[in-house]
């Protein structure tokens, strides 16, 4: 299988990668930059919407897309091997697990303090 053969080429002891012979390409960064600014503008405009839920969902969607743009193109995660991408998104999974597990204990519990 492809992975195995490539690994068996054995680049074991001379792992020096001069930056210029790097395998990922270079997208048009200016375009991405303007896309980021556009999303940023959207979230700013959205912050004037009165309906809280709509506003929050728009804003967080925008920032999630911003984050994806940065992590995929500026940080070139898109070009990294799959194992690494899985590792990074595993961090997201742990946080989701945490917030789901705790949700029923803090937001849903009424906070009352006993003062004698």
């Amino acid at each position, binding site marked *: 299988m492809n*992975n*195995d053969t490539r*690994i*068996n*080429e*054995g680049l*074991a*002891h001379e*792992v020096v990668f001069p930056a210029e012979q790097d395998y990922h390409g270079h997208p048009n960064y200016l375009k991405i930059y303007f896309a980021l600014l556009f999303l940023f503008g959207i979230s700013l405009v959205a912050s004037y919407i009165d309906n809280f839920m709509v506003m929050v969902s728009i804003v967080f969607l925008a920032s999630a897309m911003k984050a994806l743009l940065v992590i995929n193109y500026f940080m070139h995660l898109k070009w990294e091997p799959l*194992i690494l991408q899985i*590792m990074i998104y*595993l*961090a997201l*999974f*742990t*946080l989701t*697990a*945490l917030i789901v*597990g*705790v949700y*029923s*204990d*803090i937001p*849903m*519990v009424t*906070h009352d*303090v006993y003062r004698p």
Partner: protein
Amino acid sequence: MDTHKKHGFWHRYFFSLDHKDIGFQYLLTAMFMAAFGGFFVYVFRYNLAFGPNDIPLYGDLAAKQYNQLVTNHGAIMIFWVGMPILLAVIGNFLIPIMIGTDDMAFPTLNKISYWVFLLSCFVLLAGFMMPTGAFGGGWTMYPPLSVSDFGYNNPNTTFWTNFFTGNTFFLLAVALEFISMLMGGINFVVTTLNKRAKGMSLMRLPLVVWMVNIANLLFMFSVGPLIAGAFMLLMDILVGTGFFDAYRGGDPILWQHLFWFFGHPEVYVLLLPSIGAVGEIISTFSRKPLFGYKMVILMVIIAAILSLVVWAHHQFVSGIDPGAANIFSLLTIIISIPFAGMVLSYLGTLWKGNIRFETPMLWALGMLATFTFFGGFTGLHLGSNVFDIYAHDTYFVIAHFHYTLFPTVFLGGFAAFYYWFPKFSGRMMNKTLGLIHFWGTFIFFNSIFIPLFWLGLQGQHRRIYNYSAWNDLLMQPEHIMARQIATVSLIFLLLFQFVFLFNFFYSIKKGKKASKNPWEANTLEWQTDSPPPHGNFDPYPVVQRWPYDYNHPEKELDYCPQSEI
């Protein structure tokens, strides 16, 4: 670079970049801390059995000191003995020579991580010299107890009076230890992924390397929330914020979630390297290929991911939502299944094997037996949320987690130690002393904790200085007797460790010379000299096959090393 450079003593033990020396430094430091942990447990067990007055080697014990000793015993044994031995020592010493490379990916980072670890040890011990005494609120340091005398609750404290307290130092020590382990963990993973020898594909890695790396990744992903929580708790203590103060909108249960979200994966972080080493040993000494190598790895990955979502079984009675508790109970009981698969494939390795009873094999079998039959199976009792209502915070829990952690850290750790000692010292260990050490440890370990199971079922709850207040419930003659049995066996257990110390220092000086491959094992580290020279291999090996090719039908010898053509 010249691979066979000799270093002077000073350079070797203080400023060395060589992964073997750093592993040795970790080992010595961990043994030093283990001495503290063992002394603490001796003191408070003696108090529980024979009363607090004039304890030999200590004197009188007050309730405050009792809490401090219990707390620090737990923290030391887990963070300053278990993690360095099972992650740092095994990882540092074994990973580079098992994947057939010269050193870690980042040797300097490796050295720094050791020095941070050493610093954390000193910070922890310095906590005992603080005016308020060491921290004594349980190693889980639940707020508000860990904040109660400081910060906002005590107006006449300043930043610095809050800083120089046992609580702050405990917290800082744990944080430093985490940072050091994170640095080490990144180092291990990068080394394994990036510096493998020619032909060492991922499916040809020895099991223990897999396990150490999975454990490191698990640690990396689970420790973050706790570090965040530690920042919050530190601020609560130092500048009086209200993150966990119920009277200012905080919620103590948040800390419990953040803590156990790390605290449960932590158990597997400790377990995986140890059980990986046990797998190596069992496969070597039963002269058989490891049964279902790929499946074991798959099971471990499944268990690791599951372990991220079972944390709340430590909190069934701590006021969490009962509906959620059902789900956590289900997941907890389910998680026993991948481990069953793992244990069964180890037993499949033993099956019809041509077993050789060397010392490491005894330790490995002892670890497997105690961990499975007592540690693992009592996990089902506690995983069921109904019985946990009664057993939670009793000695049943204590016996349970000691039956998981003691085999993991000490039985497994000693197995690995006796197995790889010839490699890192170049000399064999004395077998008779090894056997004495094993039987002494094994028998007395069991006779400590089996009485504690019964005491727990009798309703004896944790962290109690003395039980005189529960006269008719817990002070009957049989209870007192059970406590005394446990304590006496503990003292014997500690005494038998001196046999090990003597064996260690005697063999490292005068033991008989070890050959390259004394156990006739396959993995790469046995193909170089023992001890390996600086730079490990000359020339670098080229891997031909997976590591467990014992008794291959075509081969004449009953083993064929990985690098053999």
